[in-house]
């Protein structure tokens, strides 16, 4: 039996494929785009696996008119309303723009086609429909949902804008998405450039439904060891909520501004900021001051982990006097931290990857993440298909480590497995 499917121009749009050529492409249907992921889900029997995605995204800019209704400051709210009502579209006073093309000039077609996707009419938010669509295709049970453009808010020159946008986004997210759909969780955005507002955010939102921790966007220039943050770390430790650092890039960073190909900006930017914060975190003895605080490093892949472990350990043997709080080599503290896997680097020599897994104590510390719908997303099969992992290690990395870390109640998806 065969069937044929010719591109139907009337149902799609034309995308430019060069300076002079176009190509007819159907409108985006995530279920159709990810049908091969659904085949993997069924072939590998994910139905019996708890799968938790610790890092995925939505595009909160598409809901900006709803979000800014939660802004408290009347002047900033007015500015935001004007920007979403009209304007030239060239400037925004509250979302810092990012130069770059994550979609590889349109090659990753879910970017340019995103707005063509239809969702059923109803009460649920469009973001809930779209997120559940790809979750179901991949076989994902729960996700930790993060924003997209707001990942750059840490470089906004006006701290008060970050504070107001963070609170508005957190209010909107918890009320419109997390309280409505129990499969959606989040680690809420911390307005880290204002330490007091950061503390208030944890106080206000720490017990809200679906809030499993808090997130710092790594692209910023505030050191994590600043005394102003200690009360927040203490509060998070007391509440048992993890703090996560979500990587990113900015082409305006002085060092990254010397890059002229986005491949370099991305490859370095998404690791450097987390490497910097992680090294500062350890050298200042924060793991000793907050031994029960769970720390997660998000979206830097995992190849950097052995590199930083070896660099810090080597220097520590000669310069331990500069880190007197530490009672063991830096790598030992790193082995107690958590890391999301995406984008998982797959070297030709899998022994390299296996060694990286061993050094990171993968079986208890790695958390699978898709980063969907972003361009370098990973499916669960990136972990499931690794030949050196035991069945238990796969189960841990794909879901059980996250279940334990976030104290997730998974009884609605797995009635026999309960909350831990």
């Amino acid at each position, binding site marked *: 039996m065969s069937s044929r499917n010719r591109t139907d121009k009337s149902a799609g749009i034309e995308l430019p494929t060069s300076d002079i050529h176009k*190509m007819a492409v159907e409108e985006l249907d995530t279920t159709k*785009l990810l049908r091969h992921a659904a085949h993997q889900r069924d072939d590998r029997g994910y139905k019996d696996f708890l799968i938790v995605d610790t890092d995925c995204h939505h595009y909160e800019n598409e809901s900006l008119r709803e979000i800014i209704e939660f802004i408290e400051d009347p002047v900033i709210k007015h500015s935001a309303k004007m920007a979403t009502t009209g304007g030239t579209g060239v400037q925004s006073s509250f979302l810092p723009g990012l130069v770059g093309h994550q979609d590889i000039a349109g090659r990753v077609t879910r970017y340019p086609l995103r707005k063509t996707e239809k969702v059923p009419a109803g009460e649920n938010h469009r973001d809930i429909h779209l997120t559940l669509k790809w979750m179901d295709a991949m076989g994902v049970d729960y996700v930790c949902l993060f924003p997209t453009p707001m990942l750059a808010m840490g470089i906004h020159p006006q701290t008060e804008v970050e504070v107001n946008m963070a609170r508005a986004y957190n209010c909107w997210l918890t009320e419109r998405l997390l309280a409505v759909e129990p499969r959606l969780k989040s680690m809420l955005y911390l307005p880290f450039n204002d330490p007091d507002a950061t503390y208030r955010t944890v106080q206000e939102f720490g017990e809200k439904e679906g809030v499993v921790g808090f997130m710092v966007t790594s692209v910023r220039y505030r050191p994590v060891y600043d005394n102003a943050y200690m009360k927040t770390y203490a509060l998070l430790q007391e509440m048992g909520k993890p703090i996560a650092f979500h990587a990113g890039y900015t082409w305006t960073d002085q060092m990254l501004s010397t890059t002229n190909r986005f491949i370099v900006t991305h490859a370095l930017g998404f690791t450097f900021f987390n490497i910097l914060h992680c090294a500062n975190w350890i050298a200042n003895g924060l793991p000793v001051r907050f031994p029960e605080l769970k720390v997660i490093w998000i979206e830097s892949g995992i190849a950097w982990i052995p590199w930083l472990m070896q660099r810090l350990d080597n220097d520590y043997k000669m310069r331990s006097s500069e880190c007197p709080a530490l009672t063991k080599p830096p790598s030992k503290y790193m082995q107690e931290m958590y890391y999301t896997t995406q984008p998982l680097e797959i070297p030709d020599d899998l022994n390299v990857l296996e060694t990286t897994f061993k050094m990171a104590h993968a079986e208890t510390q790695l958390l699978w993440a898709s980063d969907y719908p972003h361009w370098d997303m990973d499916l669960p099969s990136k972990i499931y298909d690794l030949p050196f992992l035991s069945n238990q290690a796969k189960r841990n990395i794909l879901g059980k480590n996250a279940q334990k870390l976030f104290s997730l109640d998974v009884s609605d998806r797995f009635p026999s497995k309960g909350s831990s």
Partner: protein
Amino acid sequence: MAKNKILVGKTSELEEAQPCIVVDGTTEIGIYRFHNKFYAYENLCPHQGGPACEGLLIPQIEEIINSDKTYRGMKFNYQNLHIVCPWHGWEYELESGEMVADRQFRLRKFEVIEEGEEIFVITE
């Protein structure tokens, strides 16, 4: 293994540089026409399993280096099209099916035959 001859359609219906997907059982195949030659590849990216043939067909990009080794820019090579997987952007040469960034990877290729006014793809 027995060979199947799958009708793709009339030659005149296959548009230049626009993929047509045919399904044979559980195998999806993308068929292309470019400069009056026909190509067929499995619609399955060896990276993570994406529907490679449903992505864009984009000319190869080449760097322009002056005789004194200074950089001048980039240009399209319109004679060499790349099949681009829409999931992550892995690129494959239309002519060979080889992944341009790492030639140990390739799309599974199928034979295409033209009989009269009709195009067929041969599967096993």
